[in-house]
């Protein structure tokens, strides 16, 4: 079973909750544990928050969310068309932040890494950033019962 969902929404802080709840709803076929749902919600929230705060400096823009569910795995892409990241390795270091004055903890990418199985970040300065994440689910998917 393969299922692909795409959506695009405004890069505003109210949509951080929308995005993580939407992705959590897609996990139902995996029969996930509460912990697994919380892991994915946290990772999605971090990536979307980065787009709102860093890619667009809280001045708005668009965020594209693409999810592919296949077998017992979810593949999530969160893309923005904002200012991009000059030094991805530095951006991903724990506690590194370009916006300490906004109470940013610098833990966003660390949380994505901790809660997902795979994390990949590609970016072009001035063009945008693509965050790709994957997580496998241990539980028996409902789809397996369908023959």
């Amino acid at each position, binding site marked *: 079973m393969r299922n692909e969902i795409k959506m695009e929404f405004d890069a505003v802080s109210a949509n951080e*909750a929308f995005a993580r709840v939407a992705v959590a709803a897609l996990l139902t076929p995996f029969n996930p544990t509460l912990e697994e749902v919380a892991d994915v919600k946290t990772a999605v929230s971090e990536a979307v928050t980065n787009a709102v705060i860093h890619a667009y400096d809280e001045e708005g823009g668009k965020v594209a969310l693409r999810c592919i569910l296949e077998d017992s795995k979810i593949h999530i892409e969160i893309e923005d068309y904002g200012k991009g990241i000059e030094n991805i390795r530095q951006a991903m270091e724990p506690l590194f932040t370009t916006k300490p004055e906004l109470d940013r*903890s610098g833990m966003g990418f660390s949380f994505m890494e*901790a809660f997902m199985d795979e994390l990949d970040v590609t970016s072009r300065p001035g063009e945008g950033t693509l965050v790709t994440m994957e997580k496998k689910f241990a539980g028996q998917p409902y789809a397996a019962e369908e023959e």
Partner: protein
Amino acid sequence: MSGNIMEERLQMIENYLMIRLPEEIDHHQAAKISKAADGYIMKEPVKHIVFDFEDTRFMDSSGVGLIVGRYKKIICFGGKVYAVNADERIRRIIGLSGLKNILNVIE
């Protein structure tokens, strides 16, 4: 959520600022809480801050930033930050973030 509803979540008990955190703490909510908390820190004799997670089921790194940011505002006067009623998930976030170094987690 209006400013008034957030205001109801904050109160002074002696020199402790008690903050009853919302169900979900993300960037959107953290911005409102920090604004309300900083209002108290400016106007009231806040020495310590207690973050009450009773209602909280979700927190991402914006919540970590919220706590660190408030801690920085009270540490110069010897203040401490406390967490109460944190469930297993919130404790995991606290552990992963290194917040344990500054945040006193109370059973």
